[in-house]
């Protein structure tokens, strides 16, 4: 068959596309649209990392003083009692679901519902 411009165009248009590997689409979707939502947002991760960095810095610069202060504090019965009361209250509140965990999908749904 001799090809002129029109017949070559027709042949090119009729050329089927390459068959993509079967798992390609699911692999793309798993990395993009269907990627599981992160539990923490970027802002939350930054906040937690900043707090951790500050605490580490304090621990490193005042290590020995903090150690002796903690040892002194834990030998104080009144302070231990207050800490126990605080922990009990936090657990009780968690059971009563008065506090909600920071969970990204719920937050996103809430944000989307906003006008």
């Amino acid at each position, binding site marked *: *068959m*001799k*090809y002129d*411009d029109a017949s*070559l*165009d027709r*042949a*090119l*248009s*009729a*050329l*089927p*596309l*390459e*068959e*993509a*590997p079967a798992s*390609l*689409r699911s*692999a*793309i*979707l798993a*990395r*993009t*649209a*269907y990627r599981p939502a992160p539990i923490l947002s970027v802002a939350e991760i930054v906040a937690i990392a900043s707090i951790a960095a500050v605490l580490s810095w304090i621990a490193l610069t005042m290590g020995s003083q903090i150690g002796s202060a903690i040892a002194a504090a834990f030998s104080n019965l009144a302070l231990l009692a207050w800490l126990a009361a605080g922990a009990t209250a936090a657990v009780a509140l968690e059971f009563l679901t008065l506090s909600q965990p920071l969970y990204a999908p719920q937050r*996103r749904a809430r944000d*989307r519902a906003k006008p």
Partner: protein
Amino acid sequence: MWEEEQDGALVAAALRGDGEAFAELVRRYDRPVYHLAYRTLHDAEEARDVTQEAFFKAYRSLRTFRPEAKFSTWIFSIAYHACCDRLNKRRRFSGEEIQDPVDAAPSPEHQAIALDEARRLRAAIDALPEKYRTVITLYHLQGQQYEEIAQVLGLPMGTVKTHLFRAKEHLRRMLSEREEP
């Protein structure tokens, strides 16, 4: 035109956080993007990686997509640049220029071409030099729109037309040569 508007609406929905809208764009364009990557790179594994990379980049930079542009042109452009990066890496590692196969003798693979027209045409496209092969592949994918091909390749429209003209000349010559006993 209707498809372009649909693509634009899907991008807008994806930007509002609708994952299903982006999934629809993937369903529409994963095969054409893979086709472009495979035709440019001639390697199924690399074509697969480039296709994934292109959609991942598009997903991450969806906010930079201009609403007046065509999504197909944008995603083809991302994929084409990823292909160019890989071709450049290949050239660096091999330490030599990749041979321009157009004037070389046909390989045994090409000599044993099937009688089937599509396979013959594919073999002829594969034997084209890289710049012509990409232009002809986009010409096939983009519905013969010169302006969009020029945008994807980052070339002036005149250059695209010249490349296309020469690519077709080569194709016609190769196809007629192969028919002769």
